[in-house]
């Protein structure tokens, strides 16, 4: 009996931690940059989790998920403008309007989209995505053309003085939506439909043989994922108070895909990590360096080759390994791997930044400031030094990784 309760406590702990993190983070990061980041992270978490309902849970690789988050944003924005015009609907429910609208669109387009999984699904979602984003530029009435549609989130009555005007009030709403949507999506994976969806992913023929129609299962899951994507879009509309056609486009869909996979599709919490990485990359990394997309792209390619399970799978695997073989006997080996990876990254980053700098030599001058270093991009010595750091880092990384793997194998064998 106590074992059962204990088990429940263990399962509840991550959720409590997650809820606390969502609600306390605004108090810790209360600068304006912090608030901006947190709002976007909350929205991205919902979007990436909804993407993973398709990819991770249903084996459907979508190249057009932004269609649903984007349509949700447009529908929410038009609803918000109605609210400003006198529609009796609280602003806090506007994202739901986006979600329901996206779900309706998914019910309309989803049946033909979900006929097949795999590459056929990837292609048709890609085609739908291009079709919708091209349509958005033609119908300027609904989509606002190049300028987009804007609105004001301070609308309607303000119960208890909550207008959602200040970012901190909106962030609380976003945190609540994020928590509830995460819980609902997790609950969905435990429903019979969620389990059927996993079966469709793993073996559609067998499921069909048992008497379920795989297309129906995929269709239902597609509509549910579209609902959550629409909610995320609606929150984004409230957050930015502006929606333009690029939220529907292939770039946005690609970002969901890239960062969800980076976070890890095999675990429910993987996309949450991916969403955090996405916002950090889009807001912080892009401000830090012009080459940020190169770093993101290369990280993605390396992850697909070496760790197809994403960050989540890496974390879980190493966490288990460290628990089984003991932190104390392995920390040095891990430290060596991290240190040499850092050296490699530093060398690589210097090389990349120098190449980018050389491209704009006329505008920027011959000196590249890099974390306190002043690099002369026209001197061969600086290139050589960066190259040596990179290559030796790579060598060290290979050696330390091999050592770490050997050590792990020894400990696992020794410990039985």
């Amino acid at each position: 009996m106590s074992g059962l309760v204990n088990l429940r406590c263990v399962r509840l702990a991550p959720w409590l931690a997650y809820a606390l993190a969502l609600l306390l983070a605004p108090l810790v990061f209360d600068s304006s940059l912090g608030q901006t980041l947190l709002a976007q992270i909350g929205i991205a978490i919902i979007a990436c989790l909804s993407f993973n309902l398709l990819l991770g849970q249903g084996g459907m690789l979508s190249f057009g998920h932004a269609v649903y988050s984007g349509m949700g944003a447009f529908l929410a924005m038009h609803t918000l403008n109605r609210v400003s015009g006198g529609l009796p609907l609280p602003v806090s429910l506007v994202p739901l309007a986006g979600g329901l609208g996206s779900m309706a669109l998914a019910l309309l387009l989803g049946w033909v989209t979900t006929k097949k999984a795999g590459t056929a699904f990837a292609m048709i979602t890609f085609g739908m995505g291009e079709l919708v984003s091209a349509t958005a530029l033609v119908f300027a009435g609904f989509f606002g053309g190049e300028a987009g549609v804007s609105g004001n989130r301070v609308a309607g009555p303000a119960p208890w003085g909550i207008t959602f005007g200040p970012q901190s009030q909106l962030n609380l709403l976003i945190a609540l939506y994020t928590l509830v949507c995460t819980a609902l999506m997790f609950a969905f994976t435990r429903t019979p439909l969620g389990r059927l969806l996993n079966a469709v992913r793993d073996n559609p023929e067998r499921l069909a043989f048992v008497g379920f129609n795989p297309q129906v299962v995929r269709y239902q899951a597609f509509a549910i994922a579209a609902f959550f994507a629409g909610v995320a879009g609606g929150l984004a509309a409230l957050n930015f108070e502006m929606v333009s056609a690029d939220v529907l486009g292939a770039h946005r869909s690609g970002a969901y895909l890239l960062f969800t996979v980076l976070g890890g599709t095999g675990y429910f919490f993987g996309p949450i990590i991916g969403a955090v990485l996405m916002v950090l990359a889009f807001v912080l990394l892009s401000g830090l360096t012009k080459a940020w997309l190169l770093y993101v792209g290369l990280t993605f390619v390396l992850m697909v080759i070496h760790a197809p399970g994403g960050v989540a799978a890496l974390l879980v695997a190493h966490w288990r390994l460290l628990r089984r073989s003991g932190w104390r006997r392995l920390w040095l080996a891990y430290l060596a791997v991290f240190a040499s990876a850092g050296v490699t990254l530093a060398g690589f980053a210097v090389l990349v930044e120098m190449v980018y700098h050389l491209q704009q030599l006329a505008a920027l001058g011959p000196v590249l400031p890099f974390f306190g270093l002043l690099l002369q991009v026209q001197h061969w010595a600086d290139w050589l030094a960066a190259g040596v750091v990179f290559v030796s880092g790579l060598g060290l990384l290979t050696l330390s990784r091999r050592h770490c793997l050997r050590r792990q194998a020894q400990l696992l064998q020794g410990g039985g």
Partner: protein
Amino acid sequence: MEFVALSLLNGVSYGLLLFMLSAGLTLIFSMMGVLNFAHASFYMFGAYLAYSISLWLGFWPALLLAPLAVGLAGALFERYGLRRVRRFGHVPELLMTFGLSFVAVELVQALWGRSSVDYRVPQVLDGPLFSLFGTQFPAYRAFMMLLSLLVLLALWLLLRTRVGLVIRAALTQPQMAQALGHNVPQVFTLVFGTGCALAALAGVLGGNAFVTEPGMAQAVGGMVFVVVVVGGMGSLVGAFLASLLIGLMQTFAVAIDATSKLAPLLPYLLMVLMLIWRPQGLLGERES
């Protein structure tokens, strides 16, 4: 009459370029089941490399060297990238090419800058070939058309030799071909490299006919998928017909006022409708 004749010529020349670009993708896609997202990136690499080589050696060596170099790069990518993730299934392979398409745009920007480069048509071909109803038809367009037709002919002949027989076997029945002792992975590398080289050749020709800039891969990337889907799996002739169809459709839609706003929509509409009603494409033999 004048309008129809000119649009017809422009449409056919655009369609033929599209065909050269998508011929390789059709082979890769139908053979390996991989939707190569980076295919248009190889087209872009072709154009940029040709630009650099033509500054150094001139256009004609570039016409040969750029596709060879890009083909080699494609083969290496297949051998050391795609083949390593193949055991995990098609999705990681697709993701890999998707990642490469990101990296490619950034690489091009790092090496050649963010604005377009001045890649020009060679002087011999710079000028009109003939004029029709008072409008001139550029000689370079005719050269592009000629080369595309030669590529179609060469591919058609290649698929009828002994090597082509193995490729076609690996295309339709990979397991069986493997069981009969053919090195199917090596055939994959070969086909992938050839496909990339063809894309690069299209880039060499399209880069100076249109414009060589970092956005050029994205501009044609979607169109290439449309051609492959509409043409059908594993069918070169299907890809040829689909390219011409889309080339003509686009040219006419842009030229006619009433439909010019809808022009960017039409190919994708065609693709989606095709996937819904005829997933095997115009001439494809099987569904994906």
